[in-house]
């Protein structure tokens, strides 16, 4: 029985581990911390599988856990004041939405695109990243961010329009 769980976990890990690591790395710009959070994320998936908990969408589960762990990591760092954390229009400021490309070894076009995504409006930033970089569906994005699928779609469209204006004709 454990072999089946291990096989299932291995398949998910092989498919999603790089995306989770990337997601963490872009948010905290610390490779070691990103590796730790990635490990913790998949450890929680492993525990859930062992406890026979049903996970309908493992991708959404992993990104949700990773996002929450990043938020916890930021809170522990206390790099953001409590007042700043309560300025967001939909549930407060999320420090994990901050992204950086510092110390990342990405080729020019990729770095350029990633920087532009990170310059998007705060509310649209993460939906665009998850939709176009990690290829998540709007319902999955809504589940991860704790919003509806429709709201996620709206943010994605707003974000992509904003991105078009930012990059001009480079990606047209």
């Amino acid at each position, binding site marked *: 029985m454990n072999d089946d769980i291990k096989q299932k976990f291995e398949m998910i890990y092989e498919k999603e*581990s*790089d995306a989770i690591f*990337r997601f963490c790395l872009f948010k905290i710009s610390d490779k070691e911390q990103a590796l730790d959070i990635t490990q913790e994320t*998949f450890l929680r998936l492993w525990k859930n599988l062992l406890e026979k908990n049903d996970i309908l969408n493992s991708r959404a589960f992993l990104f949700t856990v990773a996002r929450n762990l990043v938020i916890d990591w930021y809170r522990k760092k206390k790099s953001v004041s409590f007042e700043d954390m309560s300025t967001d229009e939909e549930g407060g400021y999320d420090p994990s939405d901050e992204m950086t490309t510092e110390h990342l*070894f*990405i080729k020019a076009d*990729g770095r350029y695109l990633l920087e532009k995504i990170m310059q998007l409006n705060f509310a649209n930033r993460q939906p665009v990243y998850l939709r176009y970089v990690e290829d998540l569906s709007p319902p999955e994005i809504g589940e991860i961010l704790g919003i509806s699928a429709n709201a996620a779609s709206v943010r994605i469209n707003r974000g992509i329009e904003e991105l078009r204006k930012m990059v001009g004709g*480079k*990606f047209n």
Partner: protein
Amino acid sequence: MENDNFKNSINEIHEVKMSFDEKSQIFNNIVGFRALAIKSDWSFNSFILLMQRNHLVTYVILFILIFVAGGGVVFDLLSNRNNQINNNNVGMNTNRASDVYNLDNDINSIKNNDIQKVDDIVISSQKIDPPIISKNTDNNSDSSLPPPTGLRGPSLGVGISSSGGSVGSPQGGILSGAWIWDNTTLNNGNVIRPQKKGVFVITFNLDEKVNGQTDCNNFSGSYTIENVGNLNFGPLSMTEMYCQGSEEKIFTNFISKSKSYEMDYSCNLTIFLVDNLGYIYFIKK
């Protein structure tokens, strides 16, 4: 927004990956993780809460506790009773051991003096075949011998009694019935067994009459039981048919030397001979 440049840029972003070692290490760390035991919701606290919410559960638990505790008392009483019985048996075994020891001493003391007397009693006819006489070297291992307790040990109140009484009384009724001669054990250690087993029978009746049969003839007469289990036979009349090799003379000689009787735990009869010569052992027919 989804032209080749955009896709290439996305692919370049996707090149940000963990190294193979990092990936393998994390995987091994996770899969090697041993899941902690899941704490059961059915803990002691929830059990107490259940008892508080449902009084029926409380009553059931109390009933079970009382039942178990009561059962323990009963078992304790039974255990004490068994211990008492065991202690009695130990005491009797001690008496048995001392009796056997005394008996051995008696046998040794009379061995040289009384053996000739016994031989005179037994071998009274030159025509009969010698009875089966074996040296009784191990009284305890011979199952045909009466249990040592029945020899001189304390009597139990379950019909095994050497106390006297008239015929017709409960004590006299103990003897009533037919008994088969199994063997005669002499104090010199010899055990005499009939060659034809089961044919030597003596029957005690409640009206002080006794009759019986040997391997050749029948006999009848009277008997009396006096105090302290003394057994006396009156004159016995006997048919006079002649049988080659009969052992009846031996048997009747033993009967005529009867002094007292006793019954063992198996309700078999032991008749002791006069002058401490030995005893005759009968099995209930």
